[in-house]
C-alpha cells in the first residue's frame, strides 16, 4: 500500500540542520557571554544598565524606530560606518549582552544610533547637537534641526500646556510659526523623556579586546 517515504526523514533532517546551525549554535556560542573584567583596574564592561534603559527602549520599540535605524557599527571591510563617525570601533556580540530586546536593525534610512549617546558635534555644527534639548527638538520635528530630514515628527510624544508658575526646564525653545501661543509651552511627555534618556545612554565605545583597537574619531566630515 503505502511505501515508506524518504520524504519525512529528509524534510526533518534539512530543517534540523538549519535550526542547529543558525539558531542553536549562536545560542550556545553567544548566549552565555559574560562581561570582561580588567584585572588591573577592576574595570567591567559592559555594565548592566538595562533597568535604566528599559522604559526608553520600550518607546523605541513601540514607535518602530528600528524600521529606519540600526544599532550596530561594522568594521571598514563592510562599510564606511567608522569613517562616518558612528563609532570608534566595530560593535561585537559582547556589547549587547544586557540589551533585551536587541535592536540591531536591518535598514538605514537614517544614521546608525549605536553610539548616539557619546557622539559629539563636529566643528562648525550646532554646539548643542546631541544634547538632551536637541534630541527633544529633533523628535518634535526633525526638520527644525536637520533640514530636509524624512524622519517622522513625533509631536504626539509632546503636549502643549499652560505655563503655571515657572516654565518647564524641558520646554521646547521654538520660534516663529512653530512656537506655542503666548502663555503656553510644549513639553515632552514621559514617553519622550524615556526615549531621550535611552538614546543618550547609547554608547558602545568602551574598548573591547575582540573588537580591535579603538580608532581616533575623524577630524573632518562624519558624525552625522
Amino acid at each position, binding site marked *: 500500500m503505502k511505501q515508506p517515504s524518504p520524504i519525512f526523514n529528509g524534510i526533518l533532517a534539512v530543517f534540523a540542520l538549519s535550526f542547529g546551525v543558525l539558531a542553536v549554535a549562536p545560542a550556545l556560542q553567544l548566549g552565555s557571554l559574560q562581561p570582561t573584567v580588567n584585572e588591573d583596574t577592576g574595570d567591567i564592561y559592559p555594565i548592566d544598565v538595562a533597568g535604566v534603559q528599559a522604559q526608553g527602549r520600550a518607546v523605541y520599540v513601540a514607535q*518602530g524606530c528600528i524600521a529606519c535605524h540600526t544599532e550596530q557599527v561594522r568594521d571598514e571591510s563592510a562599510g564606511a560606518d567608522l569613517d562616518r563617525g558612528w563609532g570608534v570601533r566595530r560593535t561585537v556580540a559582547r556589547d549587547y549582552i544586557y540589551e533585551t530586546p*536587541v535592536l540591531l536593525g536591518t535598514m538605514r534610512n537614517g544614521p546608525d544610533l549605536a553610539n548616539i549617546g557619546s557622539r559629539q558635534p563636529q566643528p562648525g555644527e550646532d554646539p548643542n547637537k546631541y544634547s538632551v534639548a536637541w534630541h527633544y527638538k529633533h523628535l518634535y520635528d526633525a526638520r527644525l534641526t536637520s533640514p530636509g530630514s524624512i524622519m517622522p515628527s513625533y509631536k504626539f510624544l509632546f503636549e502643549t500646556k499652560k505655563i503655571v508658575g515657572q516654565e518647564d526646564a524641558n520646554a521646547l525653545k521654538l520660534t516663529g510659526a512653530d512656537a506655542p501661543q503666548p502663555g503656553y509651552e510644549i513639553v515632552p511627555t514621559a514617553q519622550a523623556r524615556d526615549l531621550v534618556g535611552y538614546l543618550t545612554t547609547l554608547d558602545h565605545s568602551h574598548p573591547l579586546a575582540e573588537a580591535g583597537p579603538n580608532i581616533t574619531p575623524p577630524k573632518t566630515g562624519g558624525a552625522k
Partner: protein
Amino acid sequence: MPETLTMQKAATAPAMTDAEIEWIDRSLIDASVRTPVMFFFTTAQTWLLAATLIGFVCSIKLYWPTFLGDWSFLTFGRLWPAYTNILVYGWGLPAGIGTAIWMTARLCRVVLKSQWIPIISGIFWNIGVTVGVIAVLAGNMQPYELLEFPRAASVLLFIAYALIGAWGVVMYQNRRPGHVYISMWYFVGAFFWFPWLYASANVMVGSSHIHGVVHAAIAAWYAQGLLGYFFASVGLGAIYYLIPKVIGRPIHSYHLALLGFWSFELFWGLTGMVRYTGGPFPVWYSSLSIAALILVLIPVGTVGVNILMTMRKHTYMVYHSPTVRFTMYGTVAWIVGMLIMILGSVREMDPYTHFTQFSIGTFHLLVYAFFSMTMFGAMYYIVPRLVGCEWLSASFIRLHFWGAGYGIGFMILLLIVSGCVQGGCWNDPVSYPHATDVMDQIMPYLRGMSLAWIPLGIAHLLFFIHFIAMVLRLGQPSGEPTLFAPIEEGGEAH
C-alpha cells in the same frame, strides 16, 4: 463521502467510462475542499487590498514625512511592519494555504474529511492576523522583522497553521497508492516546516534565557526560512503543478526536480546570516551563509532549466492562458530574485546593498513578483473548478496582469537601483556627510515608488471585484476556460 463515492462507482461503473468516473471523482474532491479553500482565498484577497493601501501610504511617508503624521498609530515605524505583516500573514500565507490544500487533495486523490478543521484554522488565522496588526499599530510589537506580532497573535497563528499542517500530512498519508508527484514534496515540506520555524523562532526571541544578539540571529534565521520554507515551497510546488497541467505535458525531468528540491532545502536553510554580514557576530556565520547562498545557484539552475524546458515549444501558451502567463512571470521572478539576492550578498557587493532599499527589493521579488503572481495564476486555475463557473472577462484578467506585472516590476527596479545608490552614498561620507544628503540622492526613486502603487492598486481592486463575482457565481456558465485568445492546437488550457 468516500463511502458514497465507492458505492456510486460500484453501482454505476459498468455504465460509465473511465473519463466520467474521473470527472465525478474530481468533482467530489473539489466539493470537499470548496469551503475552506474559498474562505482562505477570500480573506487573503481582502488583506491584499489592505496591504495595498498601507503600502501606498508608507511610500508617501518616505518623501512627505508629515503626511498623516499626527497620530501615533500611523507613524511610519508602525505602518511599515503592519504593511509587511499583512502582505505576508494576511495575504501570502492564506493564499498559499488555500492553494496547497486544493492541490494536495487533488494530488493525493482524497476526498477531504473533517472540513471543519481547515475552516476553524482559517478563522483562527484571521483573528490572529487582525489582533496582530492592531497590536502593531498600537505599538505593542517585537522589534524583529516578520515576528512583530505579540504573543497572543502568534499563538493563534501557530495553532491555526499546526491544524492545517497536521491535517495536510494526514491527507498525504491517506493518499491513493502510486507515484508521489514533486509538488507534493514541496507541500508536505511547507506543512511541516512552517509551524516548526514559527514556533521555535517565537519561543526563542521571547525567551529570557537567551539574550543579546542571539535574538537577532534567530530573527534572521526565521525571516530567511520563511522565504524558502514557505514561500518558495508553496510557490514552486504550485508552478510544478500548474504548468504541466495547463500545457498538457509532463515536467521535463523528474530527477532534476528532485535535485532542485533537496539542494534548495539543504542550502537555503543555512543562508539566514547573510542579513548580518559585518554585524556583531563571529565572522563564520555570515561566511557560511554567503557560501550556502552561492550554492543555491544549483537549485536555481535545475529548477529554472526544468520549468523552462517543460515550457519549451509551448511558450505560445502565455498568450492564451492566464494561469500560464502569471506562473511564468512567477518562475522568471524566482530565478531573477535568487540571482539578485546571491549577487547582492557577496562581500564585494554587500556594502552597496546592506541596510538599504535593496533588501526591500529582494523581499518584494520573492514575496510578490514570484509568490503572489504564482498565486494569482493558481487562483485563476482553481476558483472556476470550485465555484462551477468561468471568469467573467478576459480583459479584466489582462488588466490585472499588466497592472500587477508592470507595477511590481517597476517598483522592484526602483528598489534595487535606489538601494545600490543609497549604499554607495552611505559609504562615501566625504561627498554625502549627512543622512539627509544620502536620502536626497534616492528621493526621486522613493517618489516613483508611489507611482508604482497605482497600477498595483488598480490591479488588486479589479481582481478582487472579479473574484467576488466568482464567489457570487456570476461567472460565465460556459464550461470553457476564459482565455486571452483562443487556442488553435489541442490541449487542456486554463
